């Protein structure tokens, strides 16, 4: 059984040989291959080589197109900060206010501007290279966090809280842009989309505010994406919205390390995919034995109770994580038995 068969089997409730397992290894390819971080995020072919090498070394069940939201912020006019040991970040957004963001000419998702096309090109090459055997996931920003890529988090939160008219206008434009960007990724051949949505975390927005301001734009976007979507927690907790997510037209939800897996399954219902939830920041300190214990704990909680993929909970896995720990994570899944 290859990774695509395994993941599809889990999603559709069919028997699988073992639980599928995944770790967000974007920047990690720089550690494994010795490629400079900047090259990894500027050159689609380098990213693809990195993903294929990681797949060959560890045997995780998904590969990802670049998780690089700063490339989007950069295309709007922002500036990227580069680091040797972590993924790039947005140093300075394009503008500082909602009024400026609305006045800005937004680039087309197809535009050859900055590094914007690195992601779809890498997705296409990955789909060609291994898409028949391994699911290729594209990463799509959620509309609730997207304006922050253009104007910065503080200006966006300020707008969302105190300027509802402009917030609605920005969200409407965000939905249009994201539908176009998703179309670009789906055309490139991604199997599914992961949608990090920071605003869906209880650590960021209270439930009522999310439902009042962001659920409607999100629900207007989801049917337009053209691929199954997994909503991602971005590091916080999403339990407070899982009963709503159960009604959204999505494939599933990646929950945070502080969300309770069994409780999440109860709220989501039996059909939707659940992904998670090993503590991202704990990985560098975990020995192979510890990660195996943690993995078995999550699998015992969630595998068999519904569609489940074991995964780190967070964005990129810290580069301090040892390869032995990652091998042990995959081995824990391989040794977890053979449920029918």
């Amino acid at each position, binding site marked *: 059984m290859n990774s695509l068969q395994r993941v599809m089997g889990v999603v559709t409730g069919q028997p699988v040989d073992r639980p599928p397992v995944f770790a967000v290894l974007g920047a990690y390819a720089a550690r494994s291959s010795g490629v400079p971080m900047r090259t990894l995020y500027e050159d689609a072919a380098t990213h693809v080589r990195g993903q294929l090498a990681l797949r060959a070394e560890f045997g995780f069940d998904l590969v990802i197109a670049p998780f690089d939201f700063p490339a989007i912020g950069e295309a709007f006019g922002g500036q990227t900060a580069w*680091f040797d040991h*972590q993924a790039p970040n947005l140093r*300075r957004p394009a503008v500082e206010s909602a009024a400026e963001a609305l006045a800005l000419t937004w680039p087309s998702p197809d535009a050859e501007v900055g590094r914007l096309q690195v992601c779809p090109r890498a997705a296409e090459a990955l789909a060609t290279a291994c898409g028949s055997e391994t699911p290729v996931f594209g990463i799509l920003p959620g509309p609730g966090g997207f304006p922050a890529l253009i104007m910065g988090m503080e200006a966006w*939160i300020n707008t969302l809280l105190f300027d509802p008219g402009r917030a609605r206008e920005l969200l409407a434009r965000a939905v249009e842009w994201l539908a176009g960007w998703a179309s670009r990724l789906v055309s490139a051949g991604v199997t599914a989309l992961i949608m990090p949505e920071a605003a869906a975390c209880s650590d960021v927005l209270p439930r009522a505010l999310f439902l009042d301001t962001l659920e409607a734009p999100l629900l207007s976007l989801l049917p337009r994406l053209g691929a199954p979507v997994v909503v991602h927690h971005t590091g916080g907790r999403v339990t407070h919205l899982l009963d709503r997510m159960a009604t959204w037209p999505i494939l599933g939800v990646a929950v945070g390390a502080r969300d309770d897996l069994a409780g999440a399954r109860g709220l989501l219902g039996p059909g939707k995919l659940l992904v998670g939830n090993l503590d991202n920041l704990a990985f560098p300190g975990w020995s192979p034995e510890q990660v195996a214990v943690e993995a078995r704990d999550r699998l015992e909680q969630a595998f068999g109770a519904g569609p489940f993929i074991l995964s780190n909970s967070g964005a990129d896995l810290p580069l301090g994580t040892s390869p032995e720990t990652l091998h042990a994570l995959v081995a824990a899944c391989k040794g977890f038995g053979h449920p029918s």
Partner: protein
Amino acid sequence: MEPREAITILIECMLDADRDRASRLLGELAESGAPMQELLRQVLDPALNEVGRLWERRELSMAQAYVGARIAEDFLMRCLPSEAGGAGRPSKGVVVLGNIEDDFHALGRRMVGSFLRASGWEVVDLGNDVTAEVFVDEALARGAHIVGASAMMHDAAMNIRKLRELIDRRGLAGRLKLAVGGAVFNWRPALVEEVGGDGTAANATQVDALCDRLLSEVRTEVGP
């Protein structure tokens, strides 16, 4: 209006993100003839304490805390037009804040600045991506005994070690305390020691108490 009622309304305003209602409340309190500085002590401080308790119990979102910070700033501007440390009330001291080198997540730092100003500290905000040298030089130039270094991600947080090393190398450890904070420290409390922090706070509303403690340590170690 009794302070207790005003506190309750103010907390509701912060939780409901209703800055306009908070502004109206402040106007009503001012018209009633209440001494403006007393409002800080009798209304704003208790409201912020309650908000801090909610945050500590993870019952408060970042957006609600952000609204709390904005409302606190509104109160401060109305009650102390000359800013904390000016003619309005005595300053508790100077705190130099910044996001450490390679960190660009400004929101938490700005909220800390707001709550510190509301609590009576003079805040020097150095912005994002601040090197150890700039932190220390600015602290010495401004007579600060506390520097606050913020980081959201693990790898950036490790750059705070450079600040620790510089403080120690210049022999400033007794009179310049290093407060550290940011999401990654809440997730991994052991990181505070790893980067050499003298203390941390779980959220922005608790940084006032942290700075009180750190300044007290300075006075114990080197005198007032």
